[in-house]
C-alpha cells in the first residue's frame, strides 16, 4: 500500500460521481467504495461528504431515493443521472488532459526550454 495522498481540492465531486456510476450507493457506501477502489490510499473527511452530495444533487448530477440497505436499515441511495453521466465523462477527459499537461511541464528537462 502506498502513501495516503491528500485529496486535491475539487476532486471529491469527481470521485463521488465515479463511485456512484458503478451502482447506486448510500453515503456510507460511497465512502467505503472510494476507499476500496483507491486501495485505501485515499481517505475522505467524513464531514465533507454530505455537503458535497447535497451540492451534486442540487446541481442535478445525481439523484436520491430512499431504500433499504443490506441490514434492512432505511437509507438514502444516490445514483447517477443522465446529465451526471455526461458530466463524469467530461470531467474525466479534462482531468486526463490536465494531468498530461502538468506531467509534461514537470518532466521538462533543462535543454528543452
Amino acid at each position: 500500500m502506498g502513501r495516503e495522498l491528500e485529496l486535491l481540492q475539487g476532486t471529491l465531486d469527481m470521485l463521488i460521481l465515479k463511485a456512484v456510476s458503478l451502482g447506486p450507493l448510500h453515503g456510507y457506501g460511497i465512502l467505503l467504495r472510494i476507499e476500496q477502489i483507491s486501495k485505501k490510499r485515499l481517505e475522505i473527511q467524513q464531514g465533507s461528504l454530505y455537503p458535497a452530495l447535497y451540492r451534486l444533487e442540487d446541481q442535478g448530477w445525481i439523484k436520491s431515493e430512499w431504500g433499504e440497505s443490506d441490514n434492512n436499515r432505511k437509507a438514502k441511495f444516490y445514483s447517477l443521472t443522465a446529465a451526471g453521466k455526461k458530466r463524469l465523462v467530461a470531467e474525466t477527459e479534462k482531468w486526463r488532459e490536465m494531468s498530461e499537461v502538468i506531467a509534461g511541464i514537470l518532466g521538462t528537462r533543462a535543454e528543452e526550454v
Partner: protein
Amino acid sequence: MKRIVRLLSWITNRGVREREMEEELRAHIEMRAEDLVREGLPKEEAYRCARVEFGGLERTKEECREVRGLSVLDGIWQDLRFGGRMLKKSPGFTATAVISLALGIGANTGLFSLVNAVLLGSLPVRNPQELVVVQYTTPESSGDVADDDYSYPMYRAIRNKNTVFSGVLCRSGLELNASLGGQSERVSGELVSGNYYETLGVTPYLGRLIAPDDDRVPGEGAVAVLSYGYWQRRFGGDGSIVGRDILLNSAPMRVIGVTPAGFYGTDLGRNPDIRVPMMMAKVFRPVPANRLENPRHSWLTILARRKPEVTTGQAQAALDLLYHQELSDELAGSDLSPHEREKRMGQRIRLEAGNQGFAHMRSEMERPLMLMFGATAMVLLIACANLVNLIMARNAKRRQEVAVRLAIGAGNGRLVRQWLTESLLLSAIGGAAGVAVAYWAKTALIGFMPREYAMNLRAPLDWRVLVFALAATMLTGLLSGLAPALELGRAHVAPSMREGVPATSVPERLLSLRSALVFGQVALSLPLLIGAGLFLHSLANLRGVNTGFTKENVYLATLNPSLNAYPRERVKEVYDELLTRVRALPGVKAASLTTSSVISGGWDQEGVRVEGYTPGLDENMNPNAALVSTGYFATLGIPVVKGRDFTEQDTAGRAKVAIVNETMARYFFGDRDPLGKKMSVSDEKDAPLDIEIVGVVKDAKYVRVTEATKRHFYTPMAQEPRLADMTLQVRTSTEEEARHIGEMVKAQLREIDANVPLYAATTLEIQIDNSLVRERLLTWLSGVFGVLATLLAAVGLAGVVAFSVARRTKEIGIRMALGAQSGDILREVLARVTALVAAGLMVGLALAFWVSRAAGSVLFEVKPSDPAAFVGACVVLGMAAMMAGYWPARRAVKVDPMVALRWE
C-alpha cells in the same frame, strides 16, 4: 427560477427535509458503528468512535443546509420561533414592551397620517403636479405674501391668449340657500368656469359635469353639480335627483350630475356642496352688476394646468408678459392716478405649485403639525430607551443560555441576529397594535382641528402612512435590539458558566449603559414638559385676554333673507320682526343684529374719508366696519364712553350717523372731541361727508383674540339700503339658556318666513374657543406627551436603581452588618440618582432652549425662554425622578443584612 421553486417547496417541505437529513446522517454513523463492532469494538465504544470520526454533526448539518442555499432563511425562521417562545414565557415583559411600543409608534403614525394628508397630499385630480396657482406680488409686499384675486376680463384674457397652459380655470366661493319641496337649508357653493372639471380631469360619478358650453352667456346655463357628500346627506344617494330642478337662492337650477366621492375641489379642507357655472354670477352675486365685465373688480382665484413640456419657470415668464400687456391695455383707458398705475404695473406674476391647490389649511397647520411631529418622535425615542432597558434586564437572566450557545459553536454574529430578530418581532407586534392606536389617535387629533377643516379632512391610513409605520417599527426594533445584542455578544463565557456566580454580578458596562439611557430619557422629557408649560401659559394668557366685551351667555346664529332674492323692504321686515320677537322671549336680556360677529375670524372693512384728515399716500383708510341694529353694544356689554348709542330714531331718511371706537377717535382726531365731526363711507375723493359721529365706544377685540386693537366704526343697519347676511346675537341670563334658546329662535323665524334658514348657531364662548383651537391642540398634546415621557423616564429610573441596588445586595448587607445605618446607604444611593438626574436636566435644558425657539410663533405673550415654564418643568421632572429613585432604594435598604449575606 429554480430558486423560487425550491423556496416554495422549502416552505412546504421544510420539516420533512430536516427529518430526512437527520435520519440520513444518523444512519451513516450507525453503519460505521456496526462495522466497528464487527471489527471487535464493544458497542458503546464503537458508537462513540463513529461519532468522533464523523466530526461535528451540527456543523455538517449547517453546511448541508448552507449548500441548499436556504440556511439564512432557515436560521431566521428558527430565530423567530425561538423568539416567539421567549416572549410567551415572560408575559409581563412582553405586555409592557408591546404597550409602550404601540403607544409610541401609534402616536407617530397617527400624527404622520395628518401630516400626510395636510402637508403631503395632492389634489384628487389628474396629474396634480402639472397644476399651478396663479398669484401676483406687489412692489410693497416684495415677494413674501402674494395676492391671488383677479377680475373676470383678466381671467378671460389669460385663458384665451396664453400659449403655455393646457387649461385655465377660475372659481369663487358662494353662499347659497338650497330649497327643494319647501325645505330650505344653507349650503356652501362655488362659481366655476366652464372648463373647471375638464382642466382638473374629473369625471362624473352620476350624470354629467359642467362643460364650457354651459358657461357661454351671462345669466344662462342654469345647471348645478352636486358634491358626493352633499348628494348623500341631502338626497340619501337617490339618483333620481339628476335631471330635476332645485331652487338656489330662489332661482331654479337643473341638477346635471354628481362628482365622485374622493373629489372635494381645489382647496384641502373645503368641500363645496354645489357648483354652478361662472356665468350664473349675474344671478347669484348680482352686485356689482358689471361683475363679469369690470376689470377693476377682483374676486376670482385662478388655477392653471401647464402643458407637459413647459416648466413652471417658463410659464411664469410667459404669463408675466401677457399679464402686463393686458394691464397696460386696461390702464390705457382708465382714469387712475399715475401713482396707482405704477403700483399696478409693478405687480409680478408668481406661479406656485398647485398640486395641493390653494392650500390654505396647509399654511395654517404646517407649523403646529411639525412641532407635534417632533414631539411624538421624542416620545418614541423615550419608549425605545425603556424597551432597551427592559430587554437588558431580561437578558441579564439569560446569561447562562448565552454562554452555552457560545460554547457549542454559535458564532457571535448568529447570536446578535437572534437578539435582533427577537426585538424586531417585539416591534412588529407593537407596530401592528400601533396601527390600531394610530387610527384612534388620528380621529382624536382631527377632532381638535378647526371645525370647517375637520369636517372635510380625510386622513386615511394609506400606503404612505403604512410604510411610515413599518419604517418606524423596524427602526425601533433595530435601535432597541442592537445595544443589548451587542452587549450580550461580548459577554464573557467562563464566569457565567461557573456555578455559584450570581446572575446579577454583571459587568459595570451594562449598568452604565442603562444609566446612560435614563439620562437620555430625562434629557428628552424635559423639553416636552417645558413645551407643555409654555403652551399652557400661552393658552391661559389667551383665555384671560380682556376682549372688551362680555363673552358669556351670548347665543349667535346667522341668517340671510336676501339670498331668496327678496326686495329690500321684505328683507328689512324679516330682520325687524325677528328682533322684536326674540326680545320678547323669556330669559332674553338683550338681542341685536350685526354684519360681523366678534372673534369669528373675519370682518368687513370699508374705505372712509374723515373731516379734517388728509390721508398720506398709500395710507390705510380702511377701518373695520359693521352694520348693527339698536342694542348691539348692550348685547355685547361694550360701554359707550362718549356721546350716545344708536336709537330707534336713526332710520333711513334721517341724518346719517356713526359710532367709532376709541382707537379710531384717537387716530383721526387725537385729543379733540370726535362728536359732531363728519365722515363718509367711501374713499372716492368727492364723496360727501354726510355721516355724523355721535358716539364713542370702548375698544374691543374684533377678529382674533391675539390682535392689536384696530380702528372700528359702526353704522345703523336701518340706514343701510342693502342688507346681506347678518348675525343674530342674544344675551341670556345663563350659559345654559344661551345654548338652548336656539330652538325657540328657530321657531320664531319659521313663523315669520319658513324659507329663510338659520345657520351657524353657536355661543360666543364656543366661538372664541374655536378660534383658539391651534393653541388648545398644542397644549393638550404637549401636556399628554410631557406626562407620558415623564412616566416613562420615571419607570426607567426606578428600574435602573432597583437593578443597581440588587446588584450590590451583598455589599450592602456587609456594610449594614458592620454598622452602617440604612440612612447612610440610602443617602449614597440617592446621591448617585441625583447626580444622574441633574445631568439629564442640564442637557434637557440646553435642548429645550434650542427647540423652544421654534415654537415662538405660536406662543401668545410668552417668551420662548419663559422662566415659569422652565422652572416648573424642572421641578416636576426632578420630583418625579427623585420619587422614582427613592422608592426602590428604600425597599432595598430595608432588607435584613443576614438575608442579604446569605442570598446567593
